[in-house]
């Protein structure tokens, strides 16, 4: 497996002017996708109504109530979760120098889901404010287990060993979740929807608990991004350039764990977003994480809005789980990456 750095250094770093040029376009697309996401649905609403509801809300107009109570929360969730998972994926790919890194593939989402399911099963906890904390503990635990298994595989924590141990841990936790599910069917009626990964019918109030943490983690991720570029050149190079790699890795792990856990708490396990988006972004901005990270966040938000629109309109009147579509799009890209990056 060639490391990401070898290929990335061959790609000439794009000129900053080009990188800036994408930002307004991306922002415009984001706003457009956001409005479209709200307008589309079982009852299509004209964009004018959407904008009216967002600017001068009138609780007496039925369509505007739909928008404010149902569609706006879902669109906001898509933006938050898409941005978080993509940024987490980008940071993971940089810090592990692993083109196949993704919070789902490396077991973090499975760990977060597992923790939430177990705590709910054994304590009957219903306090929504605690969910993100439990998810964080689970994601962190799974991340550490996956990393340590991969580390002690002969050859060390390579993209392959990380992916394999991530798949193994995910399979193990998945089986435990299924067993817990069978043992307490009543408790799990609510969790079942959550576990398929999707944005429909989510409790927007959770955003009040999770939002601040996501905001802090996103900001921290953006702030750390320049040093990730250096880290992606290899530990020794980074140390030679004066980066305290150990501390930086701990900080990045914390950011990734918080973003993943909060996303899982909000929308359940959504796979492959963190894998796909950074690779798409790299095609445009090259290998500089100062650009990859913010671009990944914006593109991820647009991507999840788009996926969720497809999920809602593909087979009316029913809805496909958003997580299914992200896997359908992401898995072929994964296959392509494996073909390209492995001997």
């Amino acid at each position, binding site marked *: 497996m060639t490391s990401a750095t070898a290929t990335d250094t061959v790609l000439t770093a794009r000129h900053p002017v080009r990188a800036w040029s994408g930002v307004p376009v991306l922002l415009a697309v984001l706003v457009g996708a956001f409005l479209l996401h709200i307008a589309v649905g079982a009852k299509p609403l004209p964009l004018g109504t959407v904008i009216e509801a967002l600017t001068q809300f009138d609780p007496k107009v039925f369509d505007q109530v739909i928008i404010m109570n149902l569609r706006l929360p879902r669109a906001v969730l898509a933006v938050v979760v898409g941005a978080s998972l993509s940024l987490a994926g980008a940071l993971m790919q940089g810090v592990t120098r692993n083109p196949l890194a993704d919070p789902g593939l490396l077991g973090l989402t499975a760990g977060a889901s597992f923790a939430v399911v177990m705590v709910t099963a054994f304590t009957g906890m219903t306090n929504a404010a605690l969910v993100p904390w439990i998810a964080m503990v689970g994601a962190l635990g799974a991340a550490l287990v996956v990393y340590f298994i991969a580390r002690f595989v*002969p*050859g060390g924590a390579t993209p392959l060993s990380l992916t394999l141990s991530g798949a193994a841990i995910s399979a193990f936790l998945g089986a435990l979740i*299924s067993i817990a599910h069978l043992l307490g069917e009543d408790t799990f009626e609510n969790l079942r929807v959550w576990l398929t990964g999707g944005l429909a019918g989510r409790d927007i109030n959770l955003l009040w608990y999770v939002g601040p943490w996501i905001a802090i983690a996103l900001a921290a991720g953006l702030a750390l991004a320049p040093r990730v570029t250096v880290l992606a050149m290899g530990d020794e190079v980074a140390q030679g350039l004066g980066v305290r790699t150990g501390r930086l890795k701990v900080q990045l792990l914390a950011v990734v764990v918080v973003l993943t856990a909060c996303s899982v708490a909000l929308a359940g396990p959504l796979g492959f977003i963190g894998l796909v988006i950074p690779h798409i972004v790299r095609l445009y901005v090259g290998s500089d994480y100062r650009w990859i990270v913010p671009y990944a966040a914006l593109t991820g938000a647009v991507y999840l809005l788009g996926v969720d629109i497809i999920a809602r309109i593909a087979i009316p009147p029913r809805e496909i*789980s958003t997580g299914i579509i992200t896997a*359908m799009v992401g*898995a072929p890209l994964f296959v392509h990456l494996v073909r390209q990056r492995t*001997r």
Partner: protein
Amino acid sequence: MTAVTHPRQIVLRSPRERLALKLPLRAVLVLCLLLLALFLTIAVSLATGSYGVALGDVLDTLRGITISRAIDNVVWEFRFARTLAAALVGAMMALSGAALQNATRNGLADPSLVGVSQGAALAVVTLTVVFPDISSSWRPWAAFAGAILVALAVQGLARTRQGGSTIRFILMGIGLSAFISSITSAMMTYGEIDRAMAALAWLAGSINAASWGDVWTLLAWCAVLLPALLAISRTMSALRFGEAAAIGLGAPVKLVRNLQLAVAVALAAIATSVVGPLGFVGLIAPHAAQRLAPAGMAMHLILTAAIGALLVSLADLIGRAAFAPIQIPAGLLTALIGVPLFVALLLRSRATTH
């Protein structure tokens, strides 16, 4: 057949010595113990359940003595078919894993890891959800078609100009499995709810619905596939030394490898079509056989089959007895045993370093 006993080995020869079997004593002993354990598991399995039957009564019933209509019914109609199906499916999955590991020269190969089980699962779910009018006797064929398509896709995608690569093979399997599973989930979410529920029980890898019809299907396929596997076992042992060495030894490597893959896929597909995807049995059994008693390929395959049968029988027994009346599908339990073993193999493997 004449038997000549060497120290620590038993050699069986056919009349004109066209066939000779050299059996390490240890392997024979282990096999006897495994079969005894399997027999005990089956006996206990027949006796336990929501309707308890004494072990002695079970044995009498199996000998054809009717103790009561109820016991007759419970043992013969419900439990015996299920128990036999579990053992057969376990043996088939184990052999599929052994053949797959040999053909890909990858100790981590397992039908559920390289997408073969998922391919079979998608085909069967499609049949159940989208075409419910088609009889379920088509399930094995659909499963076979799905499994072989995915196996071909994984092989094709993993192939490079320098030939197949074991690492790519596994990673391709993971990627394709995710893709196929997402299609399966899509079908489950928007298919009719009762059909989806039927498919769901099957998808978890549970044996509780197995009937005598299933047992006969499994047996019929075993009667075709097992001799085929044993027939190529000699060349398979040459392949253990690597492809170049096997060609040097004059083995028809390409043909045998393709045959092996075909048999592996067929075994996994048939087993999957009856009980759903049972993960990790194909991974565990060959390694356990190797560890318990290193033996020649044919004996290794027999041991592997016995371990697989024991493993799934035990998983099925534990799954329905441990948390009764709730039944835990055997597939979940095999995953719980299999994953730690997978990790242990990963930690020891050299194959993953390059």
